[in-house]
């Protein structure tokens, strides 16, 4: 039985259904909408597992899912050495989001990472603590800033409404995903010109750790063949 992970909520789930159905594959959620399971119309041996998109990376890496749909951002944040654990099968063309670093718009002296580094030094001298950057993407941000040689900052955890963190006094800057930038603007923030950490979109991943029996291999092959052919 092939286990396919599908985001369990919101627009991401709807668009995933549409993407599959454009390729002649109809995903069906079990009769009660509350049950987080389902199947594919006319195809046996594929079980749908509805999960939060942020849990799909873990399930793929452990091999409990054979395939799963989630964003590249959460894959890279949650899985160390992600390319040894999962393989992208297809980019789905929605759920676009850029992981970026943003600072208050009125910081007219700051446009680049160079500036952010200089301001971090100034901030620490002035305030006695490190400039705080709110994010839920701890690893990606840390790696990015380490490579860029930015020092004297600290990460504060923010699992939601991160754009409001500066205004609410929780941080001086943020790192978050954005699609249009409208929310940033509404929260008086601007993106650093070289502050793009990662471009993300919804992607179908294959687990490299899951066991595929001979039969499962057959099912997977025919499924992938159908996905390649768009109606």
């Amino acid at each position, binding site marked *: 039985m092939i286990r396919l992970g599908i985001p369990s909520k919101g627009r991401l789930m709807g668009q995933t259904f549409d993407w599959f159905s454009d390729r002649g594959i109809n995903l069906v959620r079990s009769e009660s909408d509350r049950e987080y399971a389902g199947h594919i119309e006319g195809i046996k041996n594929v079980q749908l597992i509805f999960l939060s998109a942020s849990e799909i990376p873990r399930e793929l890496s452990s091999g409990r899912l054979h395939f799963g749909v989630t964003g590249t951002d959460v894959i890279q944040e949650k899985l*160390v*050495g992600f390319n040894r654990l999962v393989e992208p099968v297809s980019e789905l063309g929605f759920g676009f989001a850029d992981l970026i670093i943003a600072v*208050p*718009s*009125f*910081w*007219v*002296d700051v*446009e*680049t990472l*160079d*500036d952010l*580094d*200089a*301001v971090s*030094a*100034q*901030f620490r001298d*002035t*305030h006695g603590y*490190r*400039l705080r950057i709110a994010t839920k993407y*701890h*690893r990606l941000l*840390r*790696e990015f*800033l*380490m490579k*860029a*040689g*930015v*020092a*004297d*900052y*600290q*990460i504060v955890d923010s699992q939601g409404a991160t754009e409001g963190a*500066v*205004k609410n*006094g929780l*941080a*001086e800057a943020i790192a978050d995903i954005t699609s249009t930038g409208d929310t940033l603007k509404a929260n*008086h923030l601007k993106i650093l010109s070289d502050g793009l950490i990662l471009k993300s979109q919804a992607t179908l991943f294959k687990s490299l750790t899951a066991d595929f029996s001979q039969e499962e291999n057959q099912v997977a092959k025919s499924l992938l063949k159908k996905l390649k052919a768009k109606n």
Partner: protein
Amino acid sequence: MTDLKDLSREAKRLAVVFEATGAEVVELDFLQISNVLLDLYGEDIRGRAFITNDPVYGEMMLRPDFTIPIVEQHMANSLSPARYTYCGRVFRRQEEFPDRPREFLQVGYEIFDGANPEKADAEVFSLVNEALNGIPFRIATGDIGILMAAVRSLSTTETRKRALLRHIWRPHRFKTLLNQFSGLSSKPLPNQDLEDYNKLIDKFQTIGSRNVQEIKVRLQQIKLESETDPIDPEEVKILDDILSLKDTCKVALSYLEKVSKKMPGIEKTVDNFAKRLDFLGSNGIKVDLLDFEGSYGRTSMEYYDGFVFGFYSETYKDLAPVATGGRYDALTERMGQGKKIPAVGAVLRPDLTLLIRGNNHD
């Protein structure tokens, strides 16, 4: 799988060399409060250490090293000279090298004594050398103190020197700044008038704890920077030459002595280098063969600010260093809240020495 009995026997064998000096044997808590480590290392330490949470103390870390807690204890208790030695496990996350161990033994030795720093440098180095006796290794040495002195003696503004010193341990950013300050690359801010910027601020809502005044101060600094003459290319070249220096200690010394005629600010640190070599020589180290690298120690721990060294296996080229050490005078000052004492130390990895020795028997 390493036999734990073998490992602990190997650790004892190494530790004996340090205990024989009469050094005080210290034990430490596994759990350390994060603040101190975070303050010193910055966010990078969160990528290297295992973090947990205590309902009372907040974030805590499984000790990633012994040196910092030992400095903390020493500075809190006394300022009299002391020698410490320890043997225990440290814990490191391994994201970049998943095959490296998450916990391993360290045997270490630290000297807090300002009477004769170069003699203390030589003592630490020679003891490590003695403990590793019989293992084929390559040794690298360097001196961050010479590098820092060279930056301090540049004929340019204090602001620039401070910016460069802050990034001694980040070679890439150091180079970017040096290029900016020597006119090789463009300035970070565009060309509008300061007044235009000040007006621009008013168009936006001010949020967060960095205030308008701080922005104006920095704009002023940027303006000043753009009006400051580039650093003399002659001086930049000396700095580059020191950074790319790679030779035996003896050759490096005579080169640096020549350089210090042109850059008198480094003279004292070069003298110290010479003194250290003398002490090493009288301890029986073959200084004529010892390698020196101008940039050595720049990408490791941020606290070394003088003599630095590392011992690497000749048999296993990809292995982490078997022993590393160095001087960290500034660290004692930062943790001593006004008090300070020159200090130098080193750590050894019994798991690695055991691996190498085992292989040599085959």
